[in-house]
């Protein structure tokens, strides 16, 4: 029996068209654009300047505090600029531009293909290595991993959950990673488990639309006493941190509390793979797997890309761009991430980031918002909300700007999963308004 979270949720078609496309190494681009905002928290501070020669894996930016992460060169070559460049949303962020020359790696990085099983490092060394390798949560939130693994006073980790749910439709990068590099993922998980404590239990949660991954990970953990694999129902947002903890442990995270308050730490399987590479191979986080997909079956890929590769390069090789250098005319929208929570790309020249899990292409018909009608009070949004909020009410309060009532109705519990907007038969922009009101309210709070 597959487990699942207890409140709300929706069942969109999973559209995993790219699941049988093996991970290909994306060719090294001529030039990379590495933004200093690869993680949540303070942007990193460049330690290279224009004209410097760099090697793959070389540190090019240092963390600007504890909640921050270092950044490493993803290609070898010359730094051609350190200046603000527009990111995929069109917002200017400090970026290091490297013109590629060859593929020279820093010394000490193990590029051999073999899997290194034996763990020879202490928990402290694992923690240090994760911190120094610039690893961030690769499930999409890009929160620095070392921060999440740092023990907090009075909160003892009991469970480490590896998130292989991949509940967003279309995305298959975690799936491919599990079936092609299951051993490495598991070793990465074991490294994090040891960093947290010997008595911590490991759980791998995988949605049951990925039977191959469940079977393989079960085989790999069959002799382990510390790890188990738990199948999860195909239901969105199964991979949400709070939903996953609820599904696997039947514990609920309180408002404003960290997940660790329930004794659980959730890490994405992609993050586990990055931890494996960092600790066992001495390789910092400079590449990641992403899915390029659309309902047009000719554009389906899973690529391992170097951080900073321009989006246009990836879409072009995947077959989504015309000869004129423009997006194929049938596509109207490019999404960075999954269709439910990903962000719309407005600038195709911008680069992919450490946490980019997918570049999805949608036609106008698939994605264009319909003309909103009137709320008929069907309560579908309430039934779909996995945090048991009343989206129809929050929407009205947001439109009216009633901040205090929004907070009384737990607007800060919203995880922005998009279930309400997805399900609304009147096509009301429920989440849009809730998000706006919440951000405004947060800004006000910071001012105070």
């Amino acid at each position, binding site marked *: 029996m597959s487990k699942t979270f207890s409140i709300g949720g929706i069942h969109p078609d999973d559209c995993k068209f790219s699941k049988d496309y093996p991970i290909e190494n994306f060719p090294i681009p001529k030039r990379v654009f590495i933004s200093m905002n690869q993680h949540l928290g303070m942007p990193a501070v460049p330690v290279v300047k224009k004209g410097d020669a760099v090697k793959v894996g070389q540190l090019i930016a240092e963390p600007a505090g504890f909640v921050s992460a270092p950044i490493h060169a993803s290609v070898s070559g010359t730094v051609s600029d350190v200046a603000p460049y527009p990111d995929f949303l069109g917002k200017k962020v400090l970026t290091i531009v490297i013109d590629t020359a060859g593929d020279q790696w820093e010394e000490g990085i193990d590029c051999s293909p073999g899997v290194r099983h034996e763990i020879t490092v202490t928990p402290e060394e694992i923690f240090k290595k994760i911190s120094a390798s610039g690893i961030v949560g690769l499930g999409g939130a890009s929160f620095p991993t070392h921060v999440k693994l740092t023990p907090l006073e009075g909160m003892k980790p009991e469970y480490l959950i590896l998130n292989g749910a991949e509940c967003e439709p279309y995305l298959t990068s975690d799936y491919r990673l599990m079936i092609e590099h299951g051993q490495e993922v598991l070793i990465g998980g074991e490294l994090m488990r040891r960093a947290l404590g010997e008595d911590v239990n490991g759980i791998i949660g995988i949605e049951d639309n990925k039977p191959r991954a469940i079977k393989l990970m079960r085989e790999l953990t069959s002799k382990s006493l510390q790890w188990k694999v738990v199948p999860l129902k195909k239901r969105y947002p199964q991979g949400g941190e709070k939903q996953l903890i609820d599904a696997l442990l039947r514990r*609920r995270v309180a408002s404003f509390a960290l997940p660790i308050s329930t004794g659980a730490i959730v890490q994405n399987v992609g993050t586990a793979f990055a931890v494996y590479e960092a600790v066992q191979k001495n390789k910092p986080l400079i590449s990641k797997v992403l899915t390029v997909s659309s309902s047009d079956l000719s554009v389906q890929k899973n690529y391992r890309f170097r951080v900073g590769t321009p989006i246009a390069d990836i879409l072009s090789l995947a077959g989504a761009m015309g000869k004129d250098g423009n997006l194929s005319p049938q596509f109207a929208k490019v999404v960075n991430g999954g269709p439910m929570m990903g962000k719309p790309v407005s600038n195709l020249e911008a680069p992919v980031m450490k946490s980019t899990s997918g570049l999805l292409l949608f036609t*106008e018909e698939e994605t264009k918002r319909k003309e909103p009608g*009137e709320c008929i009070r069907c309560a579908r949004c*309430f039934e779909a909300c996995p945090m048991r909020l009343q989206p129809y009410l929050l929407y009205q309060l947001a439109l009216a700007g009633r901040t205090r009532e929004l907070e009384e109705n737990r607007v800060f519990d919203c995880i922005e999963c998009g279930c309400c*907007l997805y*399900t609304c038969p009147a096509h009301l922009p429920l989440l849009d308004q809730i998000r706006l009101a919440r951000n405004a309210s947060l800004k006000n709070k910071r001012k105070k």
Partner: protein
Amino acid sequence: MDKLLVSPAPHLHSKENTRRIMRDMIIALMPSVLVSVYFAGLSALLVIVVSVAGCVLIEHLIVRYLMKKKTTVHDLSAVVTGLILAANLPVSSPWWMVLIGCVASIGIAKMTFGGLGHNLFNPALVGRVFLLISFPVQMTNWSLSNSIFRPDTWEFSKGLLGAQGQLLDAASGATPLGIIKEGLANGLTMETLSQQHDFSYWQMLFGHIDGSLGEASALAVLLGFAYLLVRKVIKPLIPVTILVTVALFSGILWLMDPSMNADPLFHLLAGGLLPGAVFMATDYTTSPMSPLGMLIYGVGIGVMTMIIRVWGVYPEGVSFAILFMNALTPLLNKIKPIPYRKEVSLG
């Protein structure tokens, strides 16, 4: 490049829309419509056509010429109101009365409050009660004699009704609930009443014409209910709560004194309870949105229905009960859902 759409997440939407929901409602009402036409012939069809056309036309005229907005009739909600209003009228309703009902439903109950999603009361039931108060004679005339088309001109319905000898009963102009109300008030007991009148539960289940159009067949209503559940248009909570409440309420009375009270099955099958519970009490806009609210609302409708049926002036109380609970819905919607987790961390 400048043509990229950049609306925020989510980037996909379910295929659900208001029109689709209304279309499902129409499909769910079809068994009841067909059964009433089968039994009462073109008279029933006339009432239905006038009611639907009237509701759609009045909404169109109000939106287009009074509110000066783009017409909203394509959302099909006026068609649903028209069908439900027709289901609440006797076969013998004159066309002008049906039209007045449309004005009360759409013009007063729906559009005055701002149209779809804004009305406090179920529009079709406002139409019915308006007519019931204004035209009590026409609204309780269950005979077919003054309708344009008599069912006995239709061989198939004549055969069916004639064989069971129900045409006479139908023409006598009383519903089972009415017979009981009057009989008990005149000092008769249930026993003598059921000897004088043959209350066939089979007929109530499969089809009869002594009542409003939508009351013709309990089975047709249940068929529509099943369709709505399969299509996930409604949840079973409200109808089931109403039916269970009525069954319990009437069951207790019946156990206390079977000679003066009809049994629970009679109360479940008679009158407008089933169509009311399935098609009218479940109206999204006028019913509560949270499970606890739905539960209280359902119990309220069940209790009010029984109070009116047993102690009220009218033999039937479903429409009053639903309207009464409609009025309480805004209050019931103030009930906060149980939060995801009660504690709020200050960390």
